[in-house]
């Protein structure tokens, strides 16, 4: 990962981001912001400032191990001296140690009790970053809406609240599509999307899943050296297994994040964000991560079960919004709901564009 990915282009910050960045460190803060609003980078920069101004007594906690690995790449680049923890490790291995400053990213994925544990572990101030719309553990655990965290405190002791409204990661052409997929989203407002990227997403039909993976292999070889930050995201663990087998068949080095629910020892979770290998994982595992190019092969219809349907739809929304440049949606047969209602002028349907010679 490049250094720039973990630093701030201050000249491009909006007023809301500036307020978070320039706020003094002497009060606890709750920062809520949409996907791509720069929360994770601001969390790391908060740690960098604390280290420089107040010393090393701080800790950063995130929910998943993949996000922890990802943010650790930023930790090294920014010269942060403290280790980062994913929640399970912090809770069970570290036994919830205390620190002067506690920084938690993706706070929307934690329960009230877990959030209370973070607060108890804070000697001086905490800084929580999150977005209720990105909570995809609904039904799996009793997560707490970000705004509800204020209610854990008496009025005079409430943390300072900041809200980030603008999305800097997601290109507008992708956002236009994602709004047809997401659930419980704020009203779509193009002005809130600040990325200057203009690439039109591609929805490409292939005859089979094998052909989809073959196409990914072909594109990766064709753009060797150009595509160095790639996510290949799939709906389920089984799809991850199949895609990986096919990528091997086509001679593509890649890294897999795989959870084996029957035997956790067989799980693979060694993603290295310093290599240029494509990363292959489920939509759920990709939460909090971002890639320059995202391939979504194996797009199929959602479940008929209403609850399951909502959960799958939310997960696809997360997957669609992981890109900060190029998006390839790949399917066989007919385009399933809800992608089939996306107006066709919002995407292209072939891998290449034909131009006349000059």
């Amino acid at each position, binding site marked *: 990962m490049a250094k720039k990915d973990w630093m701030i282009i201050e000249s491009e910050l909006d007023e809301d981001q500036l307020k978070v960045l320039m706020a003094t460190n002497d009060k606890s803060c709750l920062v809520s912001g949409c996907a791509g609003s720069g929360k994770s980078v601001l969390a790391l920069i908060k740690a960098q400032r604390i280290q*420089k101004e107040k010393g090393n007594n701080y800790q950063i906690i995130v929910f998943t191990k993949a996000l922890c690995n990802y943010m650790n790449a930023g930790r090294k680049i920014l010269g942060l001296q403290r280790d980062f923890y994913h929640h399970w490790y912090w809770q069970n291995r570290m036994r919830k140690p205390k620190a002067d400053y506690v920084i938690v990213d993706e706070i929307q994925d934690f329960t009230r009790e877990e959030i209370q544990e973070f607060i108890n572990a804070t000697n001086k101030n905490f800084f929580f970053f999150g977005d209720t719309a990105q909570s995809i553990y609904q039904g799996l655990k009793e997560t707490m809406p970000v705004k509800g965290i204020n209610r854990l405190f008496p009025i005079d002791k409430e943390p300072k609240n900041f809200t980030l409204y603008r999305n800097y990661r997601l290109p507008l052409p992708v956002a236009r599509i994602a709004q047809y997929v997401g659930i419980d989203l704020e009203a779509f407002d193009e002005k809130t999307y600040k990325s200057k990227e203009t690439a039109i997403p591609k929805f490409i039909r292939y005859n089979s899943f094998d052909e989809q993976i073959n196409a990914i292999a072909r594109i990766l070889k064709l753009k060797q050296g150009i595509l160095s930050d790639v996510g290949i995201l799939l709906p389920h663990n089984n799809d991850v297994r199949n895609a990986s087998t096919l990528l091997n068949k086509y001679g593509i080095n890649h890294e897999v994040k795989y959870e084996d629910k029957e035997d956790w020892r067989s799980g693979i979770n060694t993603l290295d964000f310093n290599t240029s290998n494509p990363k292959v994982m489920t939509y759920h595992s990709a939460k909090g991560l971002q890639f320059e190019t995202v391939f979504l092969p194996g797009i199929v219809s959602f479940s008929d079960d209403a609850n399951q349907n909502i959960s799958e739809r939310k997960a696809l929304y997360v997957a669609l919004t992981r890109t900060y440049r190029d998006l390839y949606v790949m399917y066989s047969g007919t385009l399933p709901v809800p992608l089939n209602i996306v107006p066709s002028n919002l995407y292209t349907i072939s891998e290449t564009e034909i131009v006349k010679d000059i």
Partner: protein
Amino acid sequence: MKKYYIPTSSLNFNNILSSESISPKVFYQVRSFGYGRWVSIPENPFDNSIVLYDELCSFRRPQSSFEDHPLLIEISLDKSVESTLSRLPEHEHIFLCNHTIYIDPWSTRLIFFTDSDKIKALSLSDSSIETKFVKLYEQKIVVVKHLASSYVRIENPKNEIQSVNNDEIEKDKRINRLKGFLYGYYIGAILSASKKDIVKLNKAREIRNILVAILSSLDRRATLQQQERLKDLYAAFQPPLFSKLSAIISEKRMFDDVISVIRKEYGYIPDEIDVNKIISQLLNMPMHLGAKNPIEDINAKIRQIEDTISKSAHLISVNEEQVIVCEDSRIKLNIEELSDKDKKLCMAWVNEVLVKDGYTGKISTFKDVLSDDITIKAKEVYESDLNIKWKGSSSELILNALRRHVRGSEYSYMWNNAIYSSISALIMCGDDWQKLLEYMQGKEMTDYRLAYAMYGIINGFANLPRDFTDVLFSQEKTYIAEVYREFYGQLFGRDVVRSKSELGGFDDLMAKIVSICRGAQRDEVRYKELYIQSGGSNQKFIDAVKNDRLLNKGKGVQKTIKDFLSKNKSASLFDETYQSTGQFLDDFNFLSNNVELNDIMKQIAKEWKGDLEWFINEYNNPDSTYYKGKKLTDNYTVIQKFIQLKGNKYKDAEHFLRKTYNC
């Protein structure tokens, strides 16, 4: 040279150090590069002009939940700039400036009034990728605490300059692009590398990718293809015996047979890399320890090769004049390696296409249009300037293939021509300088001057990231100073204000050498060559002179000259010496380390430093028994008090101190 002071907020600190300039507020809003905002304060409230004061005073910022602290810019202005200032009516000490003031580390200081304000501003600059100059201005970012008077607030802003200076905005835009080009070109030269090192680096990177892929594979096994590829790649890192043998035996099977005979005969080959063993080590590592030994090994190898590349960096001497900014703001290329045809085409791209307002910032957002535009320009240059048929020319084939590649097709270009390789790499990967570097290395390109010069002109200087400019700023300090002055001269048509120790350059140095050893006169040409190659009178130059066998009729340089050079190594702004804060009571570091003052005080060296520390602490301590109630902290009063300490014991220092503090 008169000093002026610009009060502002520390919220503008990063802005100032990203563009190395201060502009009227309205410029930021309309010039479409760098920061779009500027925080006004009551002491500097105008939109169309900057307010300058000719007195050093203090001021405050209101209590805030944001890191908004007072920041004062002190700048010595050249007569030509000074003449453009206008006095604010009814205010004797206040001036207005309706254009950008370009700062430089020789004539500028950034003053904070408390240590804590300085720490916070520097801390906030750490995360800002565009704040490039903290390192360069390090000694000019100072804390001055003892200022008695405050600036008057401008209560009635009716005297504001009414019109916006649009010509100056256009000039700023031009300077920003040209400065980006110059920095890019010189940094590109530093990043360039030999083919041998690049091939090795690519192999090491590919090994890392394969090892990590094997480790993250579902069945935790290397595929046959991965095993074979690793064997090929690791061959480059086998001990020298392998390369010596392969130079003799080109046929692979025969080579393998010979190696296997040696292995059998001696049981092993020292330092041989066994790929199967590496894979087994990789897969059998205890995961919970997070140990990645073979991966760590290859990462170390990558760092080692990168280090070799960086140590063998070629620094362009400014005297070579490879790129010149002409008076009409056009860039002229004097690159020997380019054919006249390529030079002409490249200059047309740089001066007529890449500078367009539409081409700024992220290349990925306009790469298709840019690839069209450079092709159209090439056609125009071929047909109008060069009188060469466009259809069927190599330029037509390469550039149209590039246009198709940008739109998803294959690109079979050979990467063997400097200008096409540079523009292709820029268009494909020019968003990020590190990615561009890896891409060019992946294509086995070795010369990155043009690609980064184009990257610089597209981004403009203000937007260049700090880790990119650090490639230059981490070089030897004399070299940085030479390059900095060269850029300044090319962009502004005048020299920066030089400190006394930095004046003179080579001619002065040679005159001193000749005064020590008259015979050195005949070696002047050689001395000059070494001076240019080393980038000035630095350690590299001293080492080069010491080791040069051509000097002194082949006997090597005389000891007296060696001794002189070691002592004379230029003390520059960029050396780690303390600069005066301008305030006696804030200057312990400067005063206790200053060579001249230490010479004056050498008889009582320890005692006077102890007394100085005691005196400053007592004066700063409101409960002091000795200086309680002493309200006057101006330099003159305080110096007199110090001189009188212990019965005028420090009288010898009076002249130096009054000269230093101008009182």
